[in-house]
């Protein structure tokens, strides 16, 4: 235990296309907002060091593409995740209604050891837009979160940097707890997970 390196926390961001996943990740990591981000293809990756309870950890954040076509890619990106952030747009009922399938999809593809207790987080984004546009109430969202085993819920704006920091702090905390949980049984799970892939790639070479 003493020789252990800085914990590495793998976080996946999921949700419909256009809800603001890329913007949230960039607001958290680089503290800026731009409306020039291109549509994510496959998945984008960024890292950030944060301290959780006086402990410095590295978050590896995977920002995924929202289009269904890319869902077959899930396995490659979800594996070994310590926490999954589900994002919807409070101004789009449809993006909220698909959270169920995003969650299911993640559990199927990432196949965590203990699906019932795998840490999720829900972010209702774009709360900066006028109240009149809002299609999903906080009450409705929280009700859904409760029904899925008390998933923590945050309302955010990547544009105005509202609640982004606290949300990701919570993500880090939950991911760390999860990581340590897994650590007990699989001390090296990240490496172990990452490598077997190689052999399958070999098989289809050339």
């Amino acid at each position, binding site marked *: 235990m003493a020789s252990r390196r800085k914990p590495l926390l793998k976080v996946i961001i999921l949700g419909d296309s256009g809800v603001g996943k890329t913007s949230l990740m960039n607001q958290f990591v680089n503290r800026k907002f731009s409306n020039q981000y291109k549509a994510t293809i496959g998945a984008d990756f960024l890292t950030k060091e944060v301290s959780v309870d006086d402990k410095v950890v590295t978050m590896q954040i995977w920002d995924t593409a929202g289009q269904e076509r890319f869902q077959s890619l899930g396995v490659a990106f979800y594996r070994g995740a310590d926490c999954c952030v589900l994002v919807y747009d409070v101004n789009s009922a449809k993006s909220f209604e698909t959270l169920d399938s995003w969650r299911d999809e993640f559990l199927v593809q990432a196949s965590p050891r203990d699906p019932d207790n795998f840490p999720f987080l829900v972010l209702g984004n774009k709360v900066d837009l006028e109240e009149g546009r809002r299609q999903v109430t906080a009450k409705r969202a929280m009700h859904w979160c409760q029904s899925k085993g008390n998933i923590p819920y945050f309302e955010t704006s990547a544009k105005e940097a509202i609640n982004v920091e606290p949300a990701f702090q919570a993500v880090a905390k939950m991911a760390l707890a999860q990581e340590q949980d897994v650590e007990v049984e699989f001390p090296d799970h990240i490496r172990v997970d990452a490598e077997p892939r190689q052999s399958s*790639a070999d098989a289809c070479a050339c």
Partner: protein
Amino acid sequence: MFNSLSSTPSQHSQHSQSHSRSSLARTLSTPANAHPPPSWSALPSESGALSQPSPALGQIRRDPAAAGKAARSYSASSTALAAKQPPTPQHMPGTRSPRQSPSNSVQHSPAPSSPSLSSPASRTNSIQSPSPSPSAAAHAPPSPSAPPRQTRLSYLRDPHAHFLLVAEEEARVAEGTSGGKQASKYAKMSAVLEGVNVDIDALRPLAWSGLPAPLRAMSWQILLAYMPANHERRTAAVERKRREYAEVWGGLGTVEDVGVVGEEVGKAAAEGERQTAQGNDNGSGQSGKTGDAELGRTRWKPKEGEGGVWHQISIDVPRTAASDTPMFQNKAVQDSLARLLYCWAIRHPASGYVQGINDLVNPLFVVFLGGFVDTPTHAPPSTLTPAILHAVEADTYWCLTRLLDGIQDNFTHGQPGVQRMVGRLGGLVRRIDAPLATHLAAQGVEFIQFAFRWINCLLTREMPLRLVVRMWDTYLSEPDGFSEFHLYVCAAFLVKWSEKLRGMEFGDILMFLQNPPTSSWDDRDIELLLSEAFMWKSLFHDAPRHLEGAVPGTPVG
């Protein structure tokens, strides 16, 4: 704009390893069927000539009024030539009139015989498009009384030419400034394109090593077999295709009047529409950069049915643009892009719209627009008339169709084409750069994590658009450029950074490969990459597996 001059010798020192690789290439005989052999030894000097401050995307001036009609004039004005100086912000459009103004003494008027001199009003546009906008009229042709200046233009001598070409003047200048190589290439290209039947086999090798910007639109359209090689069939064929496309979108949607819109109103309308489509796009701040203050703009909307497709396209199109191409921020352009993507998706239900296809449209659109306006990447809104946009949109639609026909399974369910190429890339890199492959594996980096996008978007995300355009000159002249040659380009692209990558850990590797430092690249870098790719292809394409691990001089570092 394009700082192709900014690269210094020291900047290239990082590629020294690659240089040695291409010298290896020189010693290798290329397979007989390999086609076409780029001249390795000519690379440095030739690319020197080609890397003239990118006439590439933009110093073309052509007559927008000629849009609907097949023939267009191309006027090599002194201004266009002046643009060959290192581009400065002053060369941005907006500071120059999109059309030659008669009062500008340094500019030539189109030749009197040019059909483009017919006024927009007398012109019959083959596409049922809105009449030329007032802004087009404002840029009406020079008045007949203005004596046409003596021109030294060499037009493509084809009354039905789809494009009229300039060759001599630019060639002369090129000769004067950067040696005869560029000039003779230009002359050769023009000769090929002026043929009654364009000899595609002659065109390919010329295109492989890079097309001069003014000849690009026509060449691409011929290489994609959209424009007939035979000049007599050309006008009719293109006009028919444009009409056919208009029928496609006419059948799939309806045109509604946006009314009189200023920039702000247009923005609000667009935003409102996106909001109702799904309500999850802030929409603001996207438009307006290039303005939208056009009168009586119409807007096309699909009929009921494929709301999901339209929604996805309309949130992707506004975020397609690179910050270095403000033209793509123009609302009318975005409408064109969205419509052509939608039509393509509906007509190709096996794949439908897949994110990333929008990126593949950009090079086509910008090159074809370059057939009509100056500096297409920065085209002022006033030059983007409905007639021009309709023509460019139609040409782009058909050429996109041709291009994607060759890589269909990149976008069908499960994207087997992309997956397969990612797998092959892994195998290939293990052969050509085993230490790198080993390092990536040891770090837990999987090829799919970075190469998926490289292949899905054909490296358009990893390169500046001007270089993608140069790359596609080669892709379009390779037998299977997009479906096969691209694999070797990806391999060359990856091993280029080998030394750096082998000193990095997982996170840094991925961030590097998702954002490789190509923004300062110029034509030389891209041509080196293409040569290396060609070399790997010659070595490994259809190579029996027993070659594995027995690569002569496998580069290690």
